[in-house]
């Protein structure tokens, strides 16, 4: 009897040990995130204190204030919002129509279209970088937010198309047919039946497109050289390179601010995270 109890106790201890190990490893992986937040809240003097303080001894929001009122950060932020939102809207409309067409209609080149989508998705940005630069230059769209939006469709569109395609593939066709038997036109059936049903897919495609565009660095670095059209990633890196004495607490505050929209999107995305895997979740 007591032998069985001892066995149970041993099992339980093992389980607790495994739980604790798991959490220790998780916290180790997440440490840079906590360190970023901690540094952004420390007074500058404490940032360079040795030994470093793990949890800020004094919490201050001065770096966030400096960031918002004394640096071009708000301009970069606004530009990023415009570019990411613009890309998302354009890409969702175009991809939803395209995905519906590829799934529900039969015409020549349909299969090829699907293959091209996947191919484009894997295409490295650096291969398109130079010709896109030429095209945008010839259209006068270098140093413009519109130019960046067009460049971003090259990765956001194939991703959204692929994700929405798998969503529409899984949708039963009966409802659309019933609507059309009742006299709805093809376009009405699309708007009234397909779009509402595809809404979860649309939301996750939109959130992923937003995050991909929000985070993009290379195109933004090359195409938008002027301060008033810079987006956050190259903008904040410029802030890193400009000062000889790097103000790490200011940069960490900027990093926190850049992460906030992603956190919000992430909270909404969680349940859809794996559905994005058909298209490879998020581009690496």
């Amino acid at each position, binding site marked *: 009897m007591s032998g069985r109890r001892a066995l149970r106790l041993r099992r339980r201890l093992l389980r607790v040990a495994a*739980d604790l190990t*798991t*959490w220790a*490893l*998780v916290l180790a992986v*997440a440490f*840079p*995130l906590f*360190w*970023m937040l901690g540094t952004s809240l420390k007074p500058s003097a404490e940032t360079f204190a*040795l*030994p470093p303080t793990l949890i800020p001894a004094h919490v201050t929001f001065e770096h966030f204030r400096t960031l918002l009122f004394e640096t071009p950060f708000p301009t970069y932020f606004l530009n990023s919002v415009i570019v990411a939102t613009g890309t998302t809207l354009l890409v969702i*409309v*175009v*991809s939803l*129509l*395209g995905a519906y067409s590829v799934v529900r*209609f*039969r*015409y020549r080149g349909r299969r090829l*279209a699907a293959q091209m989508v996947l191919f*484009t998705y894997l295409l*490295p*940005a*650096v*291969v*398109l*970088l*130079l010709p*896109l630069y*030429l*095209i945008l*230059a010839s259209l006068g769209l270098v140093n413009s937010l519109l130019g960046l939006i067009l460049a971003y*469709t090259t990765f956001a*569109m194939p991703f959204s198309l692929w994700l929405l395609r798998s969503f529409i593939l899984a949708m039963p066709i009966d409802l*659309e047919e019933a609507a*059309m038997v009742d006299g709805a036109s*093809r376009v009405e059936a699309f708007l009234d039946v397909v779009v509402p049903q595809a809404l979860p897919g649309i939301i996750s495609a939109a959130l992923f497109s937003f995050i991909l565009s929000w*985070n993009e*660095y*290379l195109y933004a670095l*090359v195409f938008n050289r002027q301060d008033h059209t810079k987006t*956050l990633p190259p903008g904040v*890196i410029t802030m*890193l390179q400009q000062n000889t004495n790097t103000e*790490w607490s200011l*940069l*960490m505050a*900027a*990093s926190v601010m*850049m*992460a906030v929209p*992603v956190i919000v*999107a*992430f909270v909404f995305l969680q349940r859809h*995270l*794996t559905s994005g*895997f058909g298209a490879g*979740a998020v*581009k690496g």
Partner: protein
Amino acid sequence: MRLKTSDSLIGVAFITPAATLFLLLVAYPLFQSILISFSAINTMTLKGHYVGLANYLDILQDQEFWRTLVNTLIWTAGSLVLQVLLGVGFALLLHRAFPGRALARSLVLFPYLLSTAVAVLVWRWLFNDLYGILNYGLVHIGLIERPIAWLSRMPEAMISVILVGAWKFFPFVVIALLARLQTIPLQLYEAARIDGASAVARFWDITLPQLSGVLAVVVLLRSIWDFKEFDLVYLMTGGGPGIGTQTLPILVYREAFPQLHLGKGAAIAVVMLLVMLVFMLLYLRQSARGDER
């Protein structure tokens, strides 16, 4: 669906905007970049002339190109191996039921969605040679005697870049594996337990074979993406010290922009695409097979 054959016109109309953007922003640029690669063009003035295969011959005789290719392979392989190991490990840990699992999963997955620029800023602060907590910690526990300038020495710079790459991208492996782990039938494990198989044996005989399909896809995708990664490597070290961590995408950028050799940059990009094409075609075939199932 064959409701009416006439409405295939609507189908074509629906695909037109996407197809137009594709032709304009992907197909035409791709074609153009091949044309550019046969010319000598100045990036600023955009003036140039046809030079045939000169750019390609130039690259093949260029020591820097080969060194960069080797760097790219080292970065890709090193980071990929760590991503897979960490990915499998954390997927197994996070698959178990334990208190606070949802939060733990979010914390592990989050770096993947974070902007690479942010990830690099945070890590450069951690790696900082004077005030970085990493150096402080390592000195404190006696592993190193004095702070190391992680990003300006070899091989430390390459090791740092690989580590940060592993941290940033392993959550992708976790996401993919967690989804697959949920679908492994529990009966398999029960049967094995009755047969007296140990936990280690159950992992090798059941879990790993069940995961192998997803793992193959994940390795393929991640090797494509790591190979073409620009942001992380460029922002960590700028390709330095010297060209110690310079990878192919960085070389393309450098040739075309700071050095204004648009044609040579394009030629390197085309060569890079040719190398990647093997992996891309493998992935396309794999996914086409998945489609038919």
